[in-house]
């Protein structure tokens, strides 16, 4: 009796498993019958905000119009969601043909190592992409074929948008108090003290979410170090250390600012979005973050905002954190490689640049020469800043790409530093432990 019931339940379990396996195979049947010349390109992107999404919808429609018989099936995901699901999807034979893949070792690097992304070198030549983006930009989307070395080797993605971390400021507050945009770091620190004395929050900031604390620290760090150093650190080459006098100094400046009350009151308990909303509502004279905030500051507010690069430290080169947005990549097992590459080329076309600029987002590509876009506003400020660092070869990096655990380590150590329970030297030592352990594991 017992035996039979076990057999029964097992066989039923098997049936369920098998039927669910059968289901897995059906999505291909659901796609419209692909007749002669008809193709469907499955694309995953993370442009979910209204303004961004409209740009992609327009580009997709124009792509379909230019390629009769081609249909684009778009799937939009929030970045966190995309990061968590795209790896398994790219490993599957009916996954997206084109997907946005986050840069850095944990995402693009891991996918290259697993052999799931197509190298784009032949298309780089075919479409002459080197005239669209510089080698410094290409490095950010490049890995060696084994996925181990970041910044060199094959190109695996193309990025449509650009980013630069700098200072947003409230023009109304500046005007009312007769403050000017500072041109040296010394001026900037004097300005901070003046704003504080006027009873206004100098820098709207909240470190509860953690990640943006990395930007506050690294924006200062970028003013003190050389481009070679930041490249070496990020790409894990030439055995640099994190425990350097410059990094200690950057941490010291950040801690001094916190102690002087230059950040929002109670900043350790305020989230990133909340601090931005407070800034947008007119509390706080400045905030240090990326150009991606610009579209939001252009709408639904009665305040006027501007943007400038954190001014250079005396005698130093004045880098800024920056780079290009999340790139589009092609699934290695896709049967539509050429069509997918054609789509990638369209995503970084002058037309795409124009649409992104109209939406207030920095395009990674140059705008068309005949563009009549109004740049006498916040967007123009961010465009200026990007052009300044791009042409001056001063585009730095998001340092949390350096090791798989760098992000978590930096966030924890910066929160300790800002909370006053550790010193700048503690921070650089602790981060160096993480960094050197990673370099060691790589050289094995």
């Amino acid at each position: 009796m017992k035996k039979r019931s076990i057999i029964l339940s097992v066989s039923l379990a098997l049936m369920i498993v098998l039927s669910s396996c059968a289901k897995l195979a059906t999505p291909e049947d659901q796609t419209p019958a692909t007749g002669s010349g008809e193709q469907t390109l499955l694309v995953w992107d993370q442009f979910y905000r209204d303004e961004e999404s409209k740009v992609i919808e327009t580009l997709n429609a124009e792509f379909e119009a230019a390629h009769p018989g081609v249909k684009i099936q778009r799937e939009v995901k929030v970045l966190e969601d995309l990061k968590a699901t795209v790896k398994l999807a790219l490993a599957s034979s009916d996954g997206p043909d084109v997907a946005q893949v986050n840069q850095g070792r944990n995402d693009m690097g891991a996918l290259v190592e697993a052999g799931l992304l197509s190298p784009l070198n032949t298309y780089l030549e075919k479409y002459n992409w080197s005239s669209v983006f510089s080698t410094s930009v290409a490095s950010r989307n490049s890995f060696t074929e084994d996925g181990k070395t970041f910044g060199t080797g094959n190109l695996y993605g193309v990025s449509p948008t650009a980013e630069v971390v700098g200072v947003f400021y409230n023009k109304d507050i500046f005007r009312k108090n007769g403050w000017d945009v500072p041109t040296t770091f010394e001026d900037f620190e004097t300005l901070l003290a003046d704003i504080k004395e006027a009873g206004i929050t100098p820098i709207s900031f909240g470190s509860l979410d953690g990640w943006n604390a990395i930007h506050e620290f690294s924006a200062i760090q970028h003013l003190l170090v050389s481009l070679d150093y930041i490249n070496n650190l990020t790409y894990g080459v030439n055995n640099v250390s994190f425990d350097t006098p410059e990094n200690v100094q950057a941490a010291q400046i950040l801690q001094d600012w916190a102690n002087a009350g230059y950040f929002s009151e109670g900043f350790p308990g305020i989230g990133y979005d909340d601090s931005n909303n407070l800034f947008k509502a007119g509390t706080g004279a400045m905030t240090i973050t990326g150009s991606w905030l610009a579209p939001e500051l252009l709408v639904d507010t009665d305040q006027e905002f501007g943007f400038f690069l954190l001014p250079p430290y005396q005698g130093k080169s004045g880098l800024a954190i920056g780079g290009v947005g999340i790139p589009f990549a092609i699934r290695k097992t896709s049967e539509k490689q050429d069509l997918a590459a054609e789509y990638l080329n369209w995503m970084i076309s002058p037309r795409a640049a124009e649409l992104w600029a109209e939406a207030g987002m920095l395009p990674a590509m140059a705008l068309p020469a005949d563009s009549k876009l109004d740049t006498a506003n916040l967007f123009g400020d961010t465009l200026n800043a990007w052009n300044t660092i791009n042409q001056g070869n001063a585009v730095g990096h998001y340092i949390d790409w350096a090791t798989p655990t760098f992000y978590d380590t930096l966030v924890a150590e910066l929160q300790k530093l800002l909370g006053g329970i550790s010193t700048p030297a503690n921070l650089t030592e602790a981060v160096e432990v993480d960094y050197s352990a990673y370099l060691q594991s790589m050289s094995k």
Partner: protein
Amino acid sequence: MLNVTNRYPGETRWKGWLYLLPTLLVYLVFTFLPILETIRTSFYQWDGFSQNRVWIGIANYVEVFSDPKFLNALRNNLVFVIFYSIIPILIGLFLASLLSRRPIPGFAFFRTALFLPQVISMVVVGVIWRWMFNPTFGPINTLLRLVGLNKFAISWLGDFTWALPAVGSIGTWVQYGFCMVLFLAGMQHIQDEYYEAASLDGAGAFQQFIHITVPGLRAEIAVALVTTIIAALRVFDLVYTTTRGGPGESTMVTGFLIYRAAFTTNRIGYAAAIATVLTVIILAISLVIRRFQRTGGEENA
């Protein structure tokens, strides 16, 4: 399990199993097999999506127990037990005895209102309390400033000393209503004669509570302990939506470490090892509580 003598003539035993089958299958496919798969994965080094899966024996487990981050997270989980389990049970006992002994107007309203946090999704709870605790515009600090307690209007979730108790107290808020309702139900079984006899003997309200109510609720207290301790040990959503483990590592819990290992550093094997250790700890604690409940029950009888 089936009582053989109660079977109708001609009815076979497998019919009973047939009724169980749907649940059994769902359990097998969605709970039991994933558990086995998790345990198997914990012996591999694997990123979760590539073909590159390497058997490394117990190396993941060795790393779990020598990882100071895991030990710190486990310690925080134990602090959560105080806030998720001990305090809610004490509050629940107090409120239940208050509400059950003498009829008060609006009893049904209070019971429902106090139970309400339990039915709200944890993510929503986390978002609400993150706003409550906001140092600039949150109601808690606004209230504190209003009554002149500016000194106490601190940055709750960002404070190295207060973040853990602050997040923990959200757990208390969620759990005590559940404990209270559980105890209220249990009190229906305690016969009034006990209380009458006790008061005739001159026992005060507190003595009655200690000697009649608490022993009478032994089974319910055990259930409350098991469910709330499990909730405290596997907490993830609340930490994810409020502090993300910060500031520093001061609210880091094992559930969050599992998420981080699996989804940000591509270490599925290590994540599975932490998950397995956590499961074993939860099982062990549940068994100990069950054991206590049983031996206690025998003494009573």
